[in-house]
């Protein structure tokens, strides 16, 4: 797509593009290239020389039980975050769409968690679930359920899922509400007159019409759970206890920044890169189709 009427000149447009291209070149493409290159190299024990090892780094991490554990943590964490955030948001959006009068008020009251950083969201839930100073943490211990997310891996996972999903509901809510409000009233009235009960109306009429929105949101939520929840995990559990909340992103950070394992970290980066590319491709392919609707 392009304009018919344009300005002449070659130097000026390059000049205008220069700042963006310099930054992407230095801070995006060069490091990404280095990560790909580095994933085929291995550093000796003293960090003095790097030799070419082919796909050995990949073979090693894929055989590493810690890495596979991070894969399964990521799958559990991301699907739990995505589905709970989508489910709660859809439920609330349907209610807000019914309560036409107050929809805007509820919208204001429900969207602000979007503004809270993942790490701060984690801290807020820590205040509630801390075993000694938190309301729920103390309550659970008080009624005889031993609660300490710093010792129990399953509880730690539950905490990071709640903190991560809580923040994402507002985003989904905005899109679901917009989607619901764009469904013509006449369609719903027709279904009502034909005698479809509310629950049936939801699943046979509303939900299919929301399917494109839901699918788009699913991808966005997965991207969020994969890449934007580093802060949640770092602030709350540091990937622990043991490695029970170490996700792929967290592991790249630990291996690269804390353990300084150059080759393994680079290989993990390359795998993650492939994952983002796939997700972005799906997202844009879908959006193109939405345009043709």
């Amino acid at each position, binding site marked *: 797509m392009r304009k018919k009427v344009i300005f002449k000149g070659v130097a000026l447009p390059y000049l205008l593009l220069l700042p963006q291209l310099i930054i992407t070149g230095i801070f995006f493409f060069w490091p990404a290239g280095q990560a790909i290159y580095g994933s085929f190299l291995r550093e000796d024990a003293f960090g003095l020389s790097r030799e070419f090892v082919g796909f050995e780094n990949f073979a090693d991490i894929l055989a590493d039980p810690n890495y596979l554990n991070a894969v399964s943590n990521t799958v559990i964490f991301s699907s739990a975050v995505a589905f709970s955030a989508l489910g709660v948001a859809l439920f*609330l959006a349907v209610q807000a769409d019914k309560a036409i009068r107050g929809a805007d008020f509820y919208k204001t009251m429900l969207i602000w968690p979007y*503004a809270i950083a993942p790490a*701060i969201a984690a801290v807020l839930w820590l205040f509630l679930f801390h075993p000694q100073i938190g309301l729920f943490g103390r309550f659970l211990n008080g009624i005889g359920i031993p609660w300490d997310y710093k010792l129990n891996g399953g509880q730690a996972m539950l905490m990071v899922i709640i903190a991560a999903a809580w923040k994402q509901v507002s985003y989904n809510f905005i899109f679901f509400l917009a989607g619901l409000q764009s469904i013509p009233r006449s369609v719903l009235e027709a279904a009502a*007159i034909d005698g479809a009960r509310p629950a049936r109306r939801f699943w046979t009429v509303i939900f299919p019409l929301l399917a494109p929105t839901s699918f788009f949101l699913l991808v966005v939520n997965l991207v969020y759970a994969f890449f934007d929840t580093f802060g949640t995990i770092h602030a709350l559990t540091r990937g622990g206890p043991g490695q029970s909340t170490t996700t792929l992103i967290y592991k790249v950070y630990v291996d690269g920044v804390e353990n300084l394992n150059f080759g393994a970290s680079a290989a993990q980066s390359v795998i993650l890169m492939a994952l983002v590319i796939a997700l972005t491709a799906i997202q844009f392919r879908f959006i193109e189709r939405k345009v043709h609707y």
Partner: protein
Amino acid sequence: MRMLMRDTTMEDIALARATARRQARSRWIAHALLALGVLIFAFPIWITVVGSTHDVSTIGRGEVPLWFGGEGVANYVSAWLRGGSSLRTTGAVPAWLMLWNSLNMAVLIAVGKIAISLLSAYAVVFFAFPGRMVCFWLIFITLMLPVEVRIIPTFEVMVNLGLINSMAGLVVPLVASATATLLFRQFFLTIPDEYVEAAKIDGAGPLRFFKDVVLPLSVTNIAALFVILFIYGWNQYLWPLLIVSDKDLETVVVGMTKMIGTGDQQNEWNIIMATAVLAMLPPVLVVILMQRWFVKGLTETEK
């Protein structure tokens, strides 16, 4: 429609009344459920705000207050001027400094991203030059390269350029923006060709056209994007954690979690809670006060 085709009977009236009653009931249920949702969402904030007004031993003992205490002013003053610290670290950073750093970072990132993207989108849309599509795709591909997937090599670049522990280091690598460029490109394509023709006839050059026509037309888009990007900048976590170790450059989101450390019971929880409130206040206010632009920005950047 069906009702119009035959005579209205008593049965129909009864049916209509029942439907109206059912709808009214379902609206009340909706209101109740929404109110419950709002309360659940606000509850963690309530506990934090209330907790920030009590003294340290009340919270340390685990008495989890549900209503305000009398230490609010004292807590906020000491958070603002002195800062709290977790047990194992020394040298607290005062909240005013962390907030100042976060504000700088967020505003510079938002303004930088908008400026750079306006220029690149303008070049791509209003000019024809060799390599135009290549440039566009180069910018687009950065969508697929978040910091997390190139973390170590990017860090090495920062070290080599001497950008570690500097505001420039916090901001510059983050100002490239595929999303903003795509949004402005999309918008520029809707500017009618007649405007460009008129400008040419009047003898206005491309820079003049940009300043006098394109920029004023873009004001709402810029405002919407600013809200989203300010929040994005304010909430940065991994990047500052990686490249800032100097306490003078600590940002509030990272500094806040450092105060918690391993979450020891003996932490100055009241000060930590006050700092948490201060850390989330600016972006939350921006969302609530600029809700219209926020929703616009959110939905448009996803197109």
